[in-house]
């Protein structure tokens, strides 16, 4: 005849020692993995010691990494966007087609960015005004945008861009390739926005409790809409970077990239259900991915193994993130 009374709320000491607070941060796990990857990589191959080699290989991943930064904000706000890779492809195909049709290249670039705004706004409209789950909406639009890209460009690849446009990955500033520089710059800007501004604060609050945020007078819909549009814009920019790097564009550009982007965000310790995560985590996770992929390539480990390693890493990181969050919750 005993009843199960819920355990009385534990009154945990709020001010934990700094070392514990640091260790309990989900990014810490990502950083540990990064350091481990660098050590293992250095042991496997001497090539690996060269910083310029790593930076060079980072250019291959910079597009997804840049998108992942904005995606981090979207996920913290409690939504998801799985369509960025498709948005990259469609905006790049628009750019290519416009250029091929004789539109000046500058204008073609503007067209591609505008298309990003439109695609992002469409996602946002479906999620925020028609109140559909973002997971479903963006699975739908990722297929649709990719399909439109295919209609537009067919099976051919569009190339013959002017030489100043192609090869952005070979241009460097202070020895750092431009795409990597953009990634670093975007990381700093977004870290400042998320960490120190009211907008960043409200993104966390929305992700923690959308209802409470609305009741507190926060313009939830406006902020989320802006995030979806930003996804479109950043995808279009990264579509252009990819086009420049590949010197051509096809409808299957960045195919399957959405999962890699989500993987980076989650590896960085961002909580998939919103409310928690950092740009720093995503930043570290991006480098982790670069190091592992490059390290395995130089160590002659076949590509077939790389997927397995990535998957394992993600699982390790999810387990640790979950553990940390549930601890903090108790």
């Amino acid at each position, binding site marked *: 005849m005993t009843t199960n009374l819920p355990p009385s709320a534990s009154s945990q000491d709020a001010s934990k020692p700094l070392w514990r607070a640091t260790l309990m941060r989900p990014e810490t796990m990502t950083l540990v993995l990064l350091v481990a990857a660098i050590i293992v990589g250095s042991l496997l191959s001497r090539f690996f010691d060269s910083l310029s080699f790593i930076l060079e290989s980072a250019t291959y991943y910079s597009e997804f990494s840049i998108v992942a930064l904005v995606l981090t904000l979207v996920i913290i706000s409690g939504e998801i966007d799985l369509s960025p890779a498709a948005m990259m492809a469609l905006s790049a195909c628009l750019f290519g087609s416009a250029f091929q049709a004789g539109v000046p290249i500058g204008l073609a670039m503007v067209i591609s960015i505008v298309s990003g705004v439109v695609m992002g706004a469409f996602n946002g409209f479906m999620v925020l005004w028609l109140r559909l789950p973002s997971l479903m909406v963006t699975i739908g639009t990722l297929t649709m945008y990719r399909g439109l890209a295919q209609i537009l460009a067919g099976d051919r690849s569009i190339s013959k861009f002017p030489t100043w446009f192609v090869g952005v990955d070979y241009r460097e500033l202070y020895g750092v390739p431009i795409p990597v520089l953009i990634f670093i710059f975007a990381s700093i800007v977004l870290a400042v926005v998320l960490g120190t501004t009211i907008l960043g604060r409200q993104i966390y609050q929305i992700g923690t*409790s959308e209802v409470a945020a609305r009741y507190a007078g926060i313009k939830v819909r406006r902020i989320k809409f802006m995030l979806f549009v930003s996804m479109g814009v950043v995808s279009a920019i990264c579509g252009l970077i990819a086009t420049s790097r590949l010197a051509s564009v096809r409808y299957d550009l960045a195919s399957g990239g959405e999962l890699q982007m989500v993987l980076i965000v989650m590896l960085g310790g961002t909580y998939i259900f919103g409310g928690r995560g950092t740009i720093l985590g995503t930043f570290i996770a991006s480098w982790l991915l670069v190091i592992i992929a490059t390290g395995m390539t130089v160590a002659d480990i076949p590509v077939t193994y790389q997927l397995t390693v990535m998957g394992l890493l993600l699982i390790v990181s999810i387990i640790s993130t979950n553990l940390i969050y549930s601890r903090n919750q108790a």
Partner: protein
Amino acid sequence: MSASTQSIGGQSAADRAILLSARGITKQFAGVEVLRDVDLDLYAGEIHALLGENGAGKSTFAKIVAGVHRPSRGVLLLNNARIEVLSPLAAQKLGITLIHQEPISFPDLSISENLALGRDDGKPLGRVRWAELKREANSLMAQLGIMIDVTRPMRGLSIADQQMVEIARALASESKLIIMDEPTAPLTPKEVETLFGISRQLRNEGRSIVFISHRLEEVRALCDRVTIFRDGNKIATEETKNLTDAEIIRLMIGREVKGYIPKHKTTVGEVALAVEGLTLPGRFENISFEIRKGEIVGLGGLVGAGRTDVARAIFGVAPAASGTIAVNGQVVEIREPADAVAQGLAFVPEDRAVAGIFRTLPVSQNITAAVPEMIAPKGFIRHGLERTIALDSVKKMMIRLVSPRQPIGELSGGNQQKAILARWLLTDPKILILDEPTRGVDIGVKAEFYEMIGALAASGRAILLISSELPELLALSDRVLVMSEGQLTGDFARGDATEESVMHAAVPRRKVVGDAQAAA
């Protein structure tokens, strides 16, 4: 722990067979007693009403009998044999069925499939005899006088029809005891009539029915006996015909008004908030009232009367379909809470856990959530400034905490509520809507809230206070509005508002069986 070895006496039921006896039923939720030592006998073949205010314990009692909750102490006896009702399914097997306020069913299954739920012939791989199920379902629904295609999915049926399906399920299960928790709320008068007819028929077959309702007329028309609950205690069990409506109401509310609520002096100014013809179909209709500066207007009524819906409409959470809201004489358009905040409104919601706090975020962030410009004058958050502001609120409101960086979820309910109120006071609101501000708050902290609410009005703010606690409502309000079933049914000046008058206005007065024709 097994508390009661009381023998159930035959004396009280010398003439009638007792179907179910409750002895010393006590229930605690998280240490709070919501039901205390309830003894109750139900006769076979009677319709027995449970009456009481919101939170009086009647639904909890019903749920214990139906196996939804387990009692903290006390025993149940069915036909003089002790029973342990571990789950709704166990109750079902004992012949006890609960029909919920909100019908629970599987919306994607058909009516006939829903009717067959919980039936088990012990053969997991046995064939389902669809034709038979359909035939049975048809005959059940016909018994209830409902012509409906039983192969239709539940989804899309009206609440009333879903309710009827639940009732049909109870019929089909051959239950000896059927508990109906506010079954008539969604029904039309004609459906109520059908339901009553069936209930009487079931009683005549010797089954027992427990009928929970707020509507005295219905209780009078249908029930043989009534039991009245108040504050978790059983107050009385009596034959319906021996009690007048006034007596029943007095028994429901008859507690002394607690003395610690201060009466505040009022100096009311001009109209701060004027609501005109506010309507949201299905929720509330044609709501008009005014609140003046320095005035506390209480909004009373039963749960579900539409009070919270009106508050949510004014604050823009779920705006009304028609009608106007004027702030300081200016008609304003409030489409979302941000608009309301810009107009100087503040809203402390009833559902603190969902709509109030950011559970995992620090107390300081929770307090400053509505005043971004205060903590980030140039767009960047100044943490020192935020801390100062938060600590200032903590001191003023006497919020008990370890550190302002502590997640608010670790605080007690009362302290969480203080933090939410502190959040709104930072916006310097002209109009405050407080929805059940003292719910889940301990007595001591309640007194603090009463003082604060009085002081806020004294400082010239207009306050709309929604409360289900009558003593609180009456003691604090300068004027009491009462809602019932989406309509304003009462407007009492301070002197005229008594527990009786408010309760009379709050209890729905719908035409019921018998009266229906007479009144028409």
